[in-house]
Structures are given as structure tokens and as C-alpha cells.
């Protein structure tokens, strides 16, 4: 049975909502799956990358998350949570398992070989690396709050659902994380100056 959970104005081309796209994926539409992948790979990748500090782990997590979606698409319930939150929940389990296995709650930053970074001016490039290091140096819970709320710009409620905690907890974690981050960035600035 086809379920059309989106308003009709969203039934056109690329703006089709995730619930409809998932129905099409289940019917075997590659175009729908590609749209879903391109729409949601970014948040999943950035979450895994900033949590682990390793690009290869982030790639593996992205791959795993979408394979889980393929294997059991019925697990996603559009009425319960948006697809991004569902996918980030899967990514979170993978990343936390990896962190637990490696027991590196403050993972080392891997040198990124991103070709886009080569185009940036050296100062800005350095700034990005410093920020990334500062985020990685945060405790895992704080780091997660910063990634979800500041990088992915999710609202507190969505972030709280992913982190399985209260909205107030997210708010306080984010407050402390930002303070820690600012202090570390100032310290680094002082060192480089």
C-alpha cells in the first residue's frame, strides 16, 4: 500500500519528502535511493568524522548506515522521527561502538587529505584544523552536542532524542562544550601568536 504522508506540493521532483522516497526505495527505485543518499550522507559523514577524527571510519559508518537502511527499510517510521535523526541514531551506535572498542574517547585527529582543503588559504586551513582538534578534544557527550547542534544545526529536541537525554541536558552540555571550545581556541591562538 502506498503511503503518501507528504502534502501534494512536495510530490514533485527532488523535493519529494523522505517518507515518499522510502516508499519508492522499497519498490526498487534507484533514483529515490540516490536522492535519499545525497540528502543525508553529509550529516552522517560529518557526525562520524567529527566524533572519530578519522575519515576512513566516517566512510565506513556512512556505508554501514545506508546498508542498514537498505536491509530493513521498514524500521524507519516517518511518523516517529525524521530520516536524518533515524540515520544519525544508527551512526551514533556505530561510532560509540568504535570508540568503546578503541577506548579512545579523545581521538587523535587524522591528517585529512581532502582536496578541497588544498584550495583554502593556509591561515584558514590552519583555523579549520585547530577547530577540529578542539572539538575532538572535548568529552564525547559534549562533542556530540556541538556536532549535532552547532555543525548540523539541529534543534535541541532532535539532538536530545538522538542522545537519549533530556532537552535541558543537551542545553547544559552545549553550554559547557562551547565554553571549553572557546577556551581551547583562545589558548591555541595564544600559542600560535
Amino acid at each position, binding site marked *: 500500500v502506498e503511503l503518501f504522508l507528504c502534502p501534494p506540493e512536495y510530490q514533485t521532483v527532488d523535493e519529494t519528502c523522505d517518507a515518499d522516497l522510502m516508499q519508492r526505495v522499497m519498490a526498487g527505485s534507484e533514483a529515490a535511493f*540516490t536522492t535519499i543518499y545525497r540528502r543525508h550522507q553529509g550529516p552522517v559523514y560529518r557526525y562520524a*568524522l567529527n566524533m572519530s577524527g578519522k575519515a576512513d571510519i566516517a*566512510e565506513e559508518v556512512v556505508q554501514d548506515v545506508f546498508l542498514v537502511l537498505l536491509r530493513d527499510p521498514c524500521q524507519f517510521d516517518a511518523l516517529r522521527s525524521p530520516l536524518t535523526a533515524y540515520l544519525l541514531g544508527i551512526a551514533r551506535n556505530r561510532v560509540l561502538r568504535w570508540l568503546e572498542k578503541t577506548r579512545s574517547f579523545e581521538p587523535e585527529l587524522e591528517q585529512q587529505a581532502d582536496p578541497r582543503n588544498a584550495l583554502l588559504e593556509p591561515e584558514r586551513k590552519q583555523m579549520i584544523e585547530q*577547530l577540529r582538534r578542539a572539538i575532538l578534544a572535548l568529552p564525547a557527550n559534549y562533542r556530540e552536542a556541538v556536532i549535532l547542534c*552547532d555543525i548540523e544545526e539541529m534543534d535541541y529536541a532532535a539532538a536530545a532524542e538522538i542522545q537519549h537525554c533530556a532537552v535541558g541536558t543537551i542545553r547544559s552540555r552545549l553550554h559547557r562544550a*562551547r565554553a571549553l*571550545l*572557546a577556551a581551547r*581556541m583562545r589558548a591555541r591562538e595564544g600559542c600560535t601568536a
Partner: protein
Amino acid sequence: MHGMSEEYRRALAALKTENAPERVEQNVLAAFRRRRQRKFGGAPRWGWGAAVAAVALAIVGAYRMQHADLVARPVPVTAHIAAPPSVVSIPMSPPKLAVRRSPRVANRQEEIATPYFALPGADSLPSPDAEAVVRMVVPRSTLQLVGFPVNEVPPPEFIRADVVVGQDGMARAIRFVQ
């Protein structure tokens, strides 16, 4: 963010634009295609196996039908019966063994079988909708259950019996076969 320069805000914005490399998309799409192929396209993996098994069964069946008179037909182990067999109550004196011939198989080995006897406690069971007769080997002492005298001197041996079993798995009646 608290006390952070504009530069750092821009750095944060740069982190927001990172995406998974192209090869990840290719891997994921390849997995999607493989899965779709298995789910929607082509014959399932077990299809060929099932077809081969069906052909093999057909050949064996045809061969057995052609050579039915040459092949000794095995005695069925289990037989479903439409109606429950007639059951006699447990006699006070030992009954005589009756000789029964199977009407279906002319050349079948002759069997000597007793009538069916209700097993103790079977009366209290609800009458089943369906029953099955199960041929099994039981200890000779089972004869005592229905009133046959059993000589204890020789070592215990086993005898064949047909047991009427209800759909609930409870045994209702038994007859002994020699």
C-alpha cells in the same frame, strides 16, 4: 559561539560543508543494485535447485511406477484415518489374537493383529477431530496394560504396535501386531 572570532565562525561553517567521498556513494549504490537484483529481478538462487529437485523426483516417480511390481512396497509407518477405529474396552480375560489380512496389498506379508484397546485414561480425554495411527515398537510389558498375561521369565523384548494418536498428541488406543 561564546567569545569566538569571526574567523572561527567561518571555520565552523567550513566543517558544515564536508561530505562523504564519491567512492562511498558508488559502493552504496552498488549494494542497492545487488539487493534490488536479488529482490526483484531474475530467478531466486534456490529456484534452480528446486527445479532440479522436482525433475529428479519426477524421474524417480516414473521409474517406480514402471517397476512397481518389482519393488517391494514398504509397510507404511504412519497412516491417517478418516474415522476413529473401533475400540473395544479392556477385557477382563486375555483376548485371543485375531488374524487380519490387509485388503489393499495382495502380496503383503500377513500380519496378526489384536483389536484396538482403549488405553487407560483415554476415556477422560476429549474426542479428537483427527487421528493418526502410528506404527511403533513398544516394550512387551505394554501388553499388561490391556490385560494380556506377560511372562516375566524371558528378558524383556519389544513388540510392534499400532497406536491411535489424537491431534492433541495423546495416545487413545493401541493394538499389537505380529
